[in-house]
């Protein structure tokens, strides 16, 4: 167990390092920052001094090392647009993303898994078919469009919910609902397929043969064993949810990380988007690591 975990931790750190390198090298592709910062009247000497101040006269590996050690200390530089501290800006926005992201993840997991169970048990009936239609729609409709249409329907036509922004509890409903709708299909499809597979196994037959009620067979024997694929796919869902969050937050003007990334893109604010990407990288990779550790808890057959 210890060896495996150590390996996984090292792997995760390597992945984060690779992403940090990509981010760092992409920053070079944006063009020379000195020309952006220096005024038109700057002489060659001014530029040389500025380069020295920014550490740009150092070799690239040294620059990377400085960038990395600063990032680890929580120093992600200053935003180009409003000169604010990037780490602080991100810190202000992160909780806002969490208050819609976490409920959506929770809801989509619970509802999606329940729908998957029902669809598998009622296989090929109209219940199953309509649930599959919902899943297919969730996977095919663009999230940003559904958000806009939800605003049109609930705010413009019915006038029951606010259009955008953050404030009253009503403001939370649409963003959470849309995010849930998009994270749901993966949960549901996976639950349905793994449960169908399990329902055909010997131990389920055996459970039925010894006279257990159908609900005991499904919930106590089959569903429990369908949980570990759910856990494995959680990392993927998380990545998906972040993508959804960027779009949904943009449409609903929700002041979270996604909207911050969008605004950083519009302003071509490289330090800001670089900080956001790094933070999300650490979060998603950390979550994947956590999932691998939980694996052994959920599935006792797995011993590292």
């Amino acid at each position, binding site marked *: 167990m210890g060896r495996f975990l150590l390996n996984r931790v090292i792997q995760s750190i390597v992945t984060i390092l690779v*992403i940090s390198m990509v981010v760092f090298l*992409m920053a070079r592709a944006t063009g020379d920052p000195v020309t952006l910062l220096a005024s038109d009247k700057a002489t060659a000497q001014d530029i040389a001094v500025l380069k020295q101040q920014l550490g740009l006269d150092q070799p690239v590996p040294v620059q990377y090392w400085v960038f990395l050690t600063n990032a680890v200390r929580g120093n992600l530089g200053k935003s180009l647009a409003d000169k604010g501290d990037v780490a602080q800006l991100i810190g202000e926005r992160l909780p806002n993303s969490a208050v819609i992201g976490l409920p959506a993840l929770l809801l989509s997991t619970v509802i999606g898994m329940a729908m998957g169970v029902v669809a598998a048990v009622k296989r090929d009936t109209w219940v199953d078919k309509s649930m599959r239609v919902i899943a297919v729609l969730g996977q095919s409709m*663009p999230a940003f469009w559904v958000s806009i249409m939800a605003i*049109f329907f609930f705010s413009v036509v019915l006038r029951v919910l606010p259009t955008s922004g953050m404030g009253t509890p009503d403001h939370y409903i649409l963003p959470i609902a849309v995010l849930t709708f998009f994270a749901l299909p993966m949960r549901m499809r996976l639950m349905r397929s793994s449960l169908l597979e399990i329902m055909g196994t010997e131990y389920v037959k055996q459970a039925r043969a010894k006279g257990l009620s159908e609900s005991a067979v499904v919930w106590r024997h089959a569903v429990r064993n369908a949980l570990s694929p759910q856990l494995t796919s959680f990392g993927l869902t998380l990545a998906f949810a972040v*993508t959804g969050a960027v779009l949904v937050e943009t449409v609903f003007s929700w002041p979270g990380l996604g909207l911050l990334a969008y605004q950083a893109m519009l302003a*071509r604010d*490289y330090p800001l988007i670089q900080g956001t990407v790094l933070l999300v990288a650490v979060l998603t*990779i950390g979550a994947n690591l956590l999932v691998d550790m939980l694996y052994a808890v959920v599935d006792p057959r797995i011993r590292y």
Partner: protein
Amino acid sequence: MATPVATAYVPPRSFAASGGARYRLIKVWREARRIPLLPSAVIVMFVIFAVFAPLVSPYDPTQIALVQKLKPPFFIEGGGIAHLLGTDNLGRDVLARLIWGSRVSLSVTAAVVVISSIVGLLIGLAAGYVGGRADDFLMRVADGSIAFPAVLIALLFAVSLGPGVTTVIIALSVLSWANYARIVRGEVLRMRQLEFIVGARVIGCSPLRVMVAHLFPNLVDVWVVMITLQVGLIVLSEAALGFLGAGVPPPTPSWGSLVSDGRNFVDTAWWISFFPGLAIGLLVLSVNYLGDWLRDRMDPQLRHR
């Protein structure tokens, strides 16, 4: 993801043993007749829109006519057959913009699918066949890029390289190749143990020959299914980037940017956003349906992936 490894014996198929071109053609025709009609028709329609945009489109998509602005679609009072799907805030025809938008969206998608499927195939083949450290490294990179939120990386690319068609193609290809590579690698690892590959190596085939003449023909099915399943995702991602303004710069219409154009008019002119989004949804729905159908026909073992 832990996927069940297929243990059933798969009859080897190589180009030499495919039983003649004519037999193959008949087989292809028999399969083709069973293709679901409606989704195929939708896809063909959008491809025609994209290819023949100048002929099909009723108007110039960028022509501004303020007199005609915010006309509703034909089925709503005030609309007419002159502008079937209405006009936007600058009087541009929504249908014309949708048709021209399909050109940008579909060509970007095609480019991304071609690049990423070939790169993914080559990397997957090499990683699976050569194995060792190279395999470990490549699969780490693949895992990393799959676990990462696509749109966020694309935004990073848009900031550093500047928004545009090339940026979108690069960003989406970088994010998409790993899906092919992982599946292809898995298949190669499985086939490496089978007699026909072992035999080919024993009689002295070079690694390149084994990969091209023996492994590749048996990978085509999986590869094609992967392509159809990825197309929908790429269309959606391209649209998302267009919507966020990280795609093709205006006034050139793309589906995503068209939805974004109508964002501020949902209260007065919902049709500006509605139809382009509907087009995206319809296309993705059709492609996904066809992909699922193809997967079930080609390999029921793949059903749960």
